[in-house]
């Protein structure tokens, strides 16, 4: 399949991804344990597992102490690198002809970049073997083929971004507004009401800088831009984008001015500094886990072009030249067993990649059930507009995000003229796209050549 074909397939399949999540959340069923190979196996030795997920210390420790303990080998779990850093490492290892890593757990877009450099091995036989005794989400399995007829990664976990609200905020909700289906204008009105009622700005966004900083870049790319312009990239400097930034100015006026210091919104939510926050589900989960009666997960707001939202797909792959291939395959087998998937869900706050592992009901990991319900509402909204994380940019993904974050800093924090900033930043963005030669990805219309900003 060509690059264009891959993107068409992604465009068609992306909305189905989280529909499966919705299905997971909709019907409580008994625990999805068992089913996988459970006979005692010989020790497979030391397995180096490099993951861009589970970076917070408690999640990394949870992976080591709760998820990986029953594996029949010794796993060296390392989640210290970002996705972009992992792409650089795998590319460098591949060029050097020697890998020190056995398994990588990374985002779909990063795995595309690793495979573009020829850095991943063909996992088709492993996929066929695993597919016999567990039910993978077929959409995610297709993702893992990266547009070819071979399987380059095995789906591991998936997630999205949403809002969590403190129930104290509901009294200030504008009359007649459904918290599960509101527009950005209604969110702004809600923020104004809360400010009038409490004297404080109670909406929060994650704008802390740095590698362990907030994910406001995803809010702008995957939520605001699609909701107002219908795409992530092509309408970057359009008239609709200017309107979007004008709405963002109004939203920022009722957003806590300490948002420039928030990296994970679960913290200010729990301290009571903010009552309404948008973030990645794994960065909100503690609020729902620790105070399920106080907090509620709700879908992101809707804009003029729809409810733009991002889905995050994380896969497991084996780099070329991995020192312990047998151990790597055994680890992927272990991580995709229903029991392990459920434990992982509880630890990292993502959703499982297996369709028969439920995340709602009495035995669901705390917090995840509430998020699954909100995710299902987000996906099933009539105006849902699913967006992908940047595809194929690999190590340049962060610089791609920089154009959005710089626009935010200049327009919102420094109050510069919107159109001039967008024209300026569009030049950097276009130059990056030209260098990486990537076509547009959903929800932008699929392009034949390099994605072009209009």
């Amino acid at each position, binding site marked *: 399949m060509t690059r264009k074909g891959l993107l068409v397939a992604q465009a068609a399949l992306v909305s189905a991804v989280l529909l499966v999540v919705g299905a997971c959340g909709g019907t409580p069923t008994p625990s999805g344990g068992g089913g996988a190979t459970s006979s005692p196996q010989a020790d497979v030795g030391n397995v180096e597992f490099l993951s861009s997920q589970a970076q917070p210390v408690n999640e990394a420790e949870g992976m080591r102490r709760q998820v990986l303990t029953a594996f029949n080998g010794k796993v060296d779990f390392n989640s210290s690198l*970002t996705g972009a850093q992992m792409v650089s490492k795998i590319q460098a290892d591949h060029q050097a002809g020697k890998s020190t890593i056995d398994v990588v757990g990374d985002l779909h877009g990063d795995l595309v970049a690793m495979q573009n450099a020829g850095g991943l091995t063909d996992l088709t036989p492993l996929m066929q073997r695993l597919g016999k005794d567990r039910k993978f989400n077929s959409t995610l399995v297709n993702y893992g083929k990266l547009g070819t007829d071979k399987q380059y990664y095995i789906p591991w976990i998936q997630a999205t971004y949403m809002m969590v609200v403190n129930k104290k905020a509901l009294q200030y909700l504008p009359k007649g507004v459904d918290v599960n289906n509101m527009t950005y204008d209604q969110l702004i009105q809600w923020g104004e009401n809360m400010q009038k009622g409490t004297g404080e700005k109670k909406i929060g966004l994650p*704008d*802390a800088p*740095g590698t362990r900083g907030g994910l406001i870049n995803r809010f702008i790319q995957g939520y605001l831009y699609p909701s107002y312009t219908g795409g992530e990239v092509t309408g970057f400097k359009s008239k609709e984008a200017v309107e979007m930034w004008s709405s963002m100015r109004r939203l920022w006026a009722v957003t806590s001015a300490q948002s420039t*210091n928030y990296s994970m919104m679960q913290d200010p939510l729990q301290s009571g500094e903010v009552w309404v926050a948008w973030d990645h589900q794994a960065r909100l989960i503690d609020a729902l886990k620790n105070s399920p009666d106080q907090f509620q997960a709700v879908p992101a707001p809707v804009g003029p072009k729809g409810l733009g939202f991002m889905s995050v797909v994380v896969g497991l792959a084996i780099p070329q030249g991995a020192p312990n291939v047998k151990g790597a395959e055994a680890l992927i087998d272990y991580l995709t067993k229903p029991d392990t998937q459920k434990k992982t869900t509880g630890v990292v706050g993502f959703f499982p990649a297996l369709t028969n592992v439920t995340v709602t009901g009495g035995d669901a990991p705390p917090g995840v059930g509430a998020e699954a319900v909100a995710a299902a509402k987000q996906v099933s909204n009539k105006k849902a507009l699913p967006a992908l994380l940047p595809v194929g940019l690999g*190590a340049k993904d962060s610089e791609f995000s920089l154009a959005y974050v710089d626009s935010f*800093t200049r327009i919102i*924090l420094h109050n510069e003229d919107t159109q001039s900033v967008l024209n300026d930043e569009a030049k950097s963005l276009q130059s990056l796209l030209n260098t990486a030669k990537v076509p547009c990805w959903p929800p932008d219309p699929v392009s034949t050549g390099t994605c072009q900003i209009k």
Partner: protein
Amino acid sequence: MLAPAAIFMTVFFAWPAVQALLIAFQTTQGTFTLANFQSMFHDTDFLRSLGNTLILLALIIPIETSIALGMAVLAQSRLRGRSVFLYIWSIPLAVSDLAAGLVWLSVFTSHGYLNSILQDLHLIQHPIGFLDYNNLSSVVAAVVIAEVWRSISLVMVIIMSGIQAIPSELGEAAEILGASAWHRFWRVTLPLLKPTLQVALILRTIAAFQVFAVVLALAGSALPVLAVKSESWVAEYRNFQLGATYAVMILVLSSLSTVVYLGLLRTPREVFQR
């Protein structure tokens, strides 16, 4: 005897420093260029980060040095319980930058200790946004307080060692001649402390140019500084060239400040030869 230390310094400090210097003047293909400096000057937050770094420096250094001087003199005095002061003042030495930043974050954040106390005392009705991005003076003040608290004991220890090196006979002679405590400090101790102050100021200024974790923890993106920009370009955006260029900027500024201190606080050789 010096070989292990020399090898260690060469491999882990000198070689990476030279590499970083070279990277700042190279393209990704390794050819010579000055384009990285051009990119840095055009970077969105370059001027702000330079300005903020200099503002922090201008506030931290005089405040910290003056207080540390007072603390060192007090710890060397004949007051009862001075050793207790010394131990308490040394506590921040053991606290990491980031931990210090987080401690002060819990004090200054809008639902932190300071606002809680002020509200409990009915002095304010709503929390004050000490760390609000649009309240730059209070953000700077919070960072200065945290930085001074974190590193003042280091400056105090350096100054104390300098005071201990001053022969006590000089002070005693001045006392016999009728000099007051203030005059003994101003006319005897301070002039003889000049070389020590020079060392303390140079070390502290270099460290202030590299201020990083405290700013990141307390101010986030509200207060960009040079070291945070350098780290961000390397670790977050994988642009080693621009990261190294920011590092070179810090190196140039640190070197310039050292030259200024060496000139301003030059001690004539004859002072020691008398």
